């Protein structure tokens, strides 16, 4: 456990008493064995909350926030806990507000192309609910089978189709939010560009530091007439990366361009049977959508560009089953990699697309030098890398070395003019890297945003901003002892 509040028993009893004034006791967890379930997300760190609440109404969330303010203790929102950056870890203890029970799709307004959902709705469940209406909610993170829309709002999630549709923020019209202090407000609304400052825009991606979202109005888009999914097979990752740039250069922006390297293919194919050639150096999963005539034209452009860059073959999915199978391989890649090593460490960095081949080589070199296997499956069209390091946390010093390697890879991204995160967020893990990207003055400005919403700084403390910016605690050092139970952190 890391620097948790460790509330005294009598204080805890009083807190629970106050919470139960408006929240049923059964929605409040305080038994050690219950709290343990919530001490980790999908990052490497761990931290125990003092109390967990599973609210079902905005009033309960507001009450919990109000009580937390009276006790001056932290409040941390959490969805499914799929975050890779430690954003949902209660590093200073406090109340963990788990929103998974707020999981209703309240309204689908097909005529006006919007839906209102609670934050605990699983991303895929919304996609499924929209099928009869021939509409989609565009953001589709690879974890969409388990991640929540609220969590997606928290980190401004992306996914394979971000290339054409943009990140979560582009698809959020408005949100009901409980602010620190307990006030309930709507930011944005049911229409685009509501008057006033764009508080909606700055809230999305704030990782629970500005408030807790309790309802979300998402915009929907119509399903395209035709979709075509292609698998371009290359002998090397260099050739595949160059093909990505060639496609963009041709003036065609596919809906998605995903790359998997040999290490990933070797692991995924035997487990998922997606149809990836096991001896390929790299594959590109490319999807084009639109009018059938356009899809025909754009696929020809894509095939030509890939062939010119030395593709061994470009396969076109002939049926929806084949298409789903190709995507299943991509979306199951992390899970499959997780089965091959005691633990994996998934990184998230962005580089200008034109620098992909150079940086990928440097990533592989750095991993090799550090003595780890590293697999790569990522959003090539966006230059969004996800190097995945395989390691055994029980091996002495391995975790520290993996974290060090992670830092080195992030530095490579920064030096290439890129970013330390494209869709996973800063959370706890990357806040010390923020100073590589932003100046003291940049961070001071960001701090103003944070304190405008949360003057006390009790909302998800020690996240996003580095030490000295709203959190006195230094970067946490992980010890091997934390991995007494081997696990797969995916």
């Amino acid at each position, binding site marked *: 456990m890391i620097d948790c509040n460790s509330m005294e028993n009598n204080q805890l009893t009083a807190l629970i008493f106050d919470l139960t004034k408006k929240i049923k006791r059964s929605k409040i967890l305080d038994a050690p064995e219950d709290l343990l379930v919530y001490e980790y997300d999908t990052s490497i760190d761990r931290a125990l909350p003092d109390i967990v609440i599973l609210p079902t109404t905005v009033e309960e969330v507001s009450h919990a926030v109000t009580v937390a303010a009276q006790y001056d203790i932290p409040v941390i929102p959490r969805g499914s806990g799929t975050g890779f950056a430690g954003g949902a870890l209660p590093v200073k203890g406090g109340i963990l507000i788990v929103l998974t029970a707020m999981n209703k799709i309240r309204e689908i*307004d097909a*005529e*006006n*192309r919007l839906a209102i959902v609670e934050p605990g709705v699983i991303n895929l469940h919304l996609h499924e609910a929209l099928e009869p209406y021939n509409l989609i909610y565009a953001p589709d993170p690879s974890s969409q089978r388990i991640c929540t829309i609220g969590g997606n709002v928290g*980190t401004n999630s*992306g996914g394979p189709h971000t290339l054409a549709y*943009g990140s979560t*923020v582009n698809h959020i019209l408005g949100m009901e939010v409980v*602010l620190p202090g307990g006030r309930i*407000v709507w*930011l944005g*609304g*049911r*229409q*685009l*560009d*509501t*008057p*006033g*400052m*764009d*508080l909606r*825009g*700055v809230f*999305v*991606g704030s990782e629970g530091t500005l408030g807790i979202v309790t309802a979300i109005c998402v915009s929907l888009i119509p399903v395209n007439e035709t979709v075509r999914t292609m698998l371009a097979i290359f002998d090397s990752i260099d050739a595949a990366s160059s093909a990505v740039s060639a496609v963009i250069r041709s*003036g065609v*922006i596919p809906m998605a361009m995903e790359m998997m390297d040999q290490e990933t293919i070797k692991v995924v194919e035997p487990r998922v049977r997606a149809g990836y050639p096991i001896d390929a150096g790299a594959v590109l999963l490319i999807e084009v959508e*639109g*009018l059938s*005539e*356009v899809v025909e*034209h754009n696929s020809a452009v894509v095939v030509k560009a890939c062939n010119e860059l030395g593709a061994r073959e470009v396969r076109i999915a002939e049926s929806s089953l084949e298409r789903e199978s190709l995507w299943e391989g991509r979306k199951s890649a992390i899970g499959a990699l997780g089965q091959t090593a005691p633990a994996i460490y998934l990184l998230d960095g*962005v*580089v*200008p*697309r*034109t620098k992909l081949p150079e940086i990928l080589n440097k990533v592989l070199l750095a991993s090799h030098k550090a003595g780890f296997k590293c697999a790569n499956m990522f*959003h090539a069209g*966006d*230059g969004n890398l996800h190097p995945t390091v395989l390691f055994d946390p029980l091996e002495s010093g391995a975790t520290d070395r993996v974290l060090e390697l992670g830092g080195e890879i992030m530095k490579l991204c920064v030096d290439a003019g890129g*970013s330390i995160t*494209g*869709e996973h*967020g800063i959370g706890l893990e990357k806040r010390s890297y923020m100073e590589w*990207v*932003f*100046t003291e*003055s*940049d961070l*001071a*400005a*960001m701090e*103003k*945003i944070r*304190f*405008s919403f949360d*003057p006390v700084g009790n909302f998800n403390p020690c996240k*996003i*901003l580095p030490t000295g910016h709203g959190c006195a605690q230094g970067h946490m050092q992980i010890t091997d002892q934390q991995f007494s139970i081997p696990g797969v952190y995916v």
Partner: protein
Amino acid sequence: MSNIQAFPESIGNFIKSLPPEICREPEMYVIDGKVPLSAFRPLHIDQISQIIQFANQYNFAVSPQGSRTALTFGRKLERYDIALDTSGISKLVEYTPEDLTVTIESGATLHDLQAILSEHRQYLPADPNPSDVVTIGGLLATARSGAWRGNVPSTRDLILGMTVVMADGSIATSGGRVVKNVSGFDMHRLHTGALGSLGIISSASFKVLPIPERNVSLILHCSDIKEAGDLAFILRNSVLPIRGLTILDSKTSFKLGFSYAPKVLVEYVGIEVSIHRSIQDTEEIMRRFGEINQLEDSQIWAEIRSLANEKKEQIVLRCGVQANNIVEVIKLAELTSAICTWANLTSGSVRVIFEDINVVSLSKFRSQVEGLGGFMQVETAPGNIREVFDPFGDIETDLVRSLKYRFDPSGILNPGRWMVGV
């Protein structure tokens, strides 16, 4: 420089310390009838910083302005001492066509940017009023959009990062120059639409898109506004590659040189085959409605954009409603003295123009639109109207006050634009 002696001594001394080429005639920068004490047109971001530091030190109110096309957005300024003309900060910072990213200083006009991008057959899909004469800073600070909003990604969707001179003169950057980035708070989203009240935007980075190979505009003749609404809905629900879908009321139609009857104006973009298919499908749909004409060029969209800035004293409203209430709002506007009303269906935006309207009628119209679950914002109006009629309506105020307090504690940046003291 006019009459330095009449200035407060601090301004006089400050002006003497600056390169003479950045000092301007204050009379050129009148806002709502008020001439500022002084005006500057800095040529470098450090000079903006220097001016803001000075203003902050002596508590002079600064109003940033680019092409001066949106000076009546928001309430009347409570104080106006220094005009900060950003048009001298207009360099291209970085453009990598292969990465579809560009960074440009805020004083460059949208026209300048599009010219640079078009050399590589790329563009920023923004069509604000009155035209591409708006500066990038002005485009962002006012978050203006046009018929493309909702159909193709907008400036709000494509902004990647921003550099801002803060109210204390410090320089802060957020986001970055890569197309996907969630590091830190998205300050650039906060400044987009903040009307220059939290900082001076000095440069911005965008993701850009390829220019569509072809575009075509069709005008569809309707017998009444209900039919226009039905038709626009049918088109929106099609799979056709729409970039603009606008309903014109009879008056607007007539003003643009068409018959005095409602119209639907649609623009399709894409490759030759998709344009061909779009025209064919639209003709098929129109069999149930009326006449259809293909326009020779896209000029009509530019004409619509310029309507909102046609006359200095006119009143321009931007209403936002859900798509299924668009026609209702147009009908409500027809009951007023509005001279033009047009609506962009996909974004749910209706613009209404008046030559004159009293505050009572404005209030009534706002409550009618709000009754439909929408909002009504005054985009342009003479100062005497904006003095007594809140341009924004019901907006979140506490958080805005809190942000203003932290970003601009002395209240020197466009004071009063949002509300009293903010």
